[in-house]
């Protein structure tokens, strides 16, 4: 089972990358689960035709009890991708990190992996490894590979550096390893060179490159990933290439 966590600065395009990867894997015939681990709960919206999914934390808040079945908290989206959102507390209250831990425990209790038997699990995680809860997706038993999404913007690279340092610090805990950088272009001056320099310094390969394109925005406006909208486009090909690379690495392991 290929399990990948996607990290990166807020607003850098993690959900776009994750959803398109999920759609690419699904189009390749794989059984996929995408778990959004952001209190905003918008990770999977473009796999679901623009219709938001009821997050786990909303279920708990509104029903005041734990869900009994996976159907209560998940929905199948494009290509049969099983979509789950952890959601979070009311902004400014409670603890979002604890929400992620509680959701993961619940998914374990509901025997998500045993029941659904996925080939690929993608965790789309909020911005940075801010606390224990947000490191949960890279703990033993969860994701084994980390993708860091960044552009050439200074703050995006700063966040990418924080994430790679955090993951390295966890080495003695048998956590996930960084698989590579996904360069999501923002048309910053000398963008490729800047990210290449960071990649070289951090010794992390650039495994994917998504050109700046209105195509992504156009399909997302319709509640779709680019893969769903135009499987043959250049952007789609980039996601298919990355998906193939991840699968190949998993097979080789």
């Amino acid at each position, binding site marked *: 089972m290929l399990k990948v966590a996607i990290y990166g600065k807020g607003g850098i395009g993690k959900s776009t990358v994750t959803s398109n990867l999920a759609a690419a894997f699904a189009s390749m015939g794989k059984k996929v689960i995408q778990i959004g681990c952001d209190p905003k709960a918008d990770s999977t919206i473009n796999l679901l035709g623009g219709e938001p999914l009821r997050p786990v934390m909303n279920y708990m808040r509104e029903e005041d009890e734990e869900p009994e079945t996976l159907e209560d908290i998940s929905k199948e989206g494009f290509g049969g991708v099983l979509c789950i959102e952890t959601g979070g507390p009311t902004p400014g209250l409670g603890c979002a*990190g*604890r929400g*992620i831990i509680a959701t993961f425990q619940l998914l374990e209790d509901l025997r998500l992996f045993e029941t659904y038997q996925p080939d690929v699990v993608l965790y789309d995680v909020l911005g940075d490894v801010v606390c224990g809860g947000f490191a949960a997706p890279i703990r033993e038993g969860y994701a084994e590979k980390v993708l860091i999404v960044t552009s050439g913007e200074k703050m995006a690279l700063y966040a990418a550096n924080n994430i790679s340092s955090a993951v390295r610090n*966890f080495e*003695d*805990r048998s956590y996930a390893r960084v698989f590579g950088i996904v360069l999501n272009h923002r048309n910053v001056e000398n963008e490729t060179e800047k990210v290449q320099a960071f990649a070289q310094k951090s010794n992390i390969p650039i495994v994917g490159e998504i050109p700046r394109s209105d195509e992504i925005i156009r399909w997302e406006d319709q509640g779709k990933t680019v893969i769903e909208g135009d499987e043959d486009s250049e952007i789609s090909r980039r996601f298919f290439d990355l998906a193939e690379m991840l699968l190949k690495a998993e097979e080789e392991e």
Partner: protein
Amino acid sequence: MRGLRKYLTPFAPDQSGAVSVLFELGGIVVICDAGGCTGNVCGFDEPRWFEQKSAIFSAGLRDMDAILGRDDRLVAKLADAAEKVDAAFTAVIGTPVPAVIATDYLALRRMTEKKMNLPVLTVDTDGMELYDKGEEKAFLELFKTFAVEKYPVDEHKIGVLGMTPQDVSDLAAADKIRELFQRKYGQKAVCYCMGDGLEEVKKVSSVSKNIVVSPAALATAKYLEKTFGTAYEIYYPLVEDLLPEMDYTGKRILVVHQQVIAGSIRKELLKRGAKAIQTACWFMMKKELQADGDVILRDEDAYIELVQNGEFDIIFADECMDRMTPKFDGTFVNTRHFAVSGKLI
């Protein structure tokens, strides 16, 4: 109001149950708390604390440990304690603090194992569940860690799983069970976690069968059956001691206890001619042990309504519950449950 308590004291939480399972086994047991949970275990939830020696520690967490997630300090403390105490293993027991800051027990175990030459157990209790849930986790963790070797089966040896003071409410229960099996069947009864130590846990595959005396041990019995092929039965061997001599013929009876003891009392009462028996539990109820009408009690009102509407002739329950239903005019049989009253037989 749902959950409001006017009669009963709060029940022991899951971390107390986990500690009870490990109490006698010669390990360093560290409760991952600021001190209060350990105080509860030693002051209220573990009656053996006043009679027996056990290396129970509090991690002594402070605000900055929680904010900064300094579990490396805990590992250092554990390594230090292991040098000073002659222990067979180290166990880390979770409480609400590590649950809220998302302490990773698997990582903690890995880091601790690298620092010291002792087996490390971690139990991810969170203080939000009741004692039996913690026992269930600790029993499984204990046997999965130590029962790794397959020994030849001794037909004259049986195992008793699920013995803790919270469940059997009698510190002499293990001795009584050992004596009973020796006298009646010529068998040696091994009472895990009450009187029989870690060496017997390691040799659990040598017993001819296991007897499960509390629902918290059922998952472990299933694990041992799957791993070593050891069959199990579910009943409380001392049930006859809990039934006073009286005429039960045609009587409607309510039994409130932990599920296995309640079920054993039911079976015995039916043999003695009772007409209808309903059981109720404040704690976990396994579906496979449940009969029609058996209920989990969510709060005091649920119990009071059950008695008011049940037309029972006899109630078997801990004496502390007698005053909850002053209008009940049948016979109340005091059936001690330490987990409910904090009182022993």
